[in-house]
C-alpha cells in the first residue's frame, strides 16, 4: 500500500464542489485509458500497412466508435484543464475558492491522514466540514506534529 491518505468514506462529508471535480477527473482519466488503448491499436494498424489501416479506420468511422471518440475528446479537455487546475494548486498553493473545503498544509496531509480521523471524535461529526486543525491541536500527543 502507498504511504498516503486514502479516499475517505465519501458519505461522511458534506458535499463540496471539489468532490465532483475530483470524481470527474478520475472517470475521465479511466475513459482516457481506454482511448490510449485505442490509439496504440491504431498506431499498430498504421505500422502494419495500408490494408490494416483501412480496416481500422472503417471500424473507427462506425457510429458507436464516433460517439466514443467524441466522449474521449471531451474527457481529454476536462482532464487536461482540471489537471492544469491541480498543477496551479500544487505550484502556487492558490487559496481555495469560497465553498471549497479548507486547504491543509502538505505537511499535515503527510503526518496525519484521513485514516487517523477515527482517533478524533468530533473531527468528522462537527458539521461535516473537514476541520483537522482545531481538533488535532487539542490532542496533546499530536500537537507537536501540527505546530513544529
Amino acid at each position, binding site marked *: 500500500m502507498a504511504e498516503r491518505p486514502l479516499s475517505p468514506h465519501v458519505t461522511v462529508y458534506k458535499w463540496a464542489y471539489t468532490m465532483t471535480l475530483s470524481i470527474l477527473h478520475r472517470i475521465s482519466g479511466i475513459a482516457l485509458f481506454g482511448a490510449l488503448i485505442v490509439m496504440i491499436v491504431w*498506431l499498430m494498424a498504421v505500422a502494419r500497412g495500408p490494408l490494416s489501416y483501412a480496416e481500422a479506420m472503417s471500424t473507427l468511422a462506425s457510429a458507436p466508435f464516433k460517439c466514443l471518440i467524441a466522449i474521449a475528446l471531451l474527457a481529454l479537455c476536462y482532464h487536461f484543464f482540471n489537471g492544469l487546475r491541480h498543477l496551479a494548486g500544487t505550484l502556487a498553493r492558490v487559496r481555495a475558492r469560497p465553498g471549497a473545503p479548507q486547504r491543509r498544509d502538505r505537511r499535515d496531509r503527510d503526518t496525519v491522514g484521513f485514516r487517523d480521523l477515527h482517533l478524533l471524535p468530533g473531527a468528522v461529526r462537527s458539521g461535516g466540514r473537514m476541520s483537522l486543525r482545531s481538533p488535532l491541536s487539542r490532542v496533546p500527543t499530536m500537537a507537536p506534529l501540527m505546530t513544529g
Partner: protein
Amino acid sequence: MDPARQRGGAGALCLWLTASLLLLPTRNHAVVAHWIGLGLHPVLLVLMTLLATWHAWLGLQVVIEDYVPQSGPRIALQLLSTFTNALLATTGVYAVLRIALHGVA
C-alpha cells in the same frame, strides 16, 4: 508519490498529437505514416507513449487503492494495470519505430 513531472509532459504531448491529427488535410495511410516519420515526430511520439502509459499507471494505481479494499482483487488489478501499461508502452514504441524506420532497414 505522484511526481508532477510526467503530468505536464503527458498533457502537452497528448494535446500536440490530437491537434496535429485533427489538422492533417486528409487521413489516408500515406499521409499519416509520412507525418509520423517526419523529423522529430517519432521521437516525440515515443516520449508521449512512455509518458502517457506512466501517467495512466500512476493514476490507475491510485484509483485501485482507493476503491478496491480487499487485498486479493486489489493486487490482481494492480498487476493487471502494470502488465497492460507495460504492454501498451512497448507496443506503442514498437509501432512508432516500425513506421518511422519503414524502408530504412
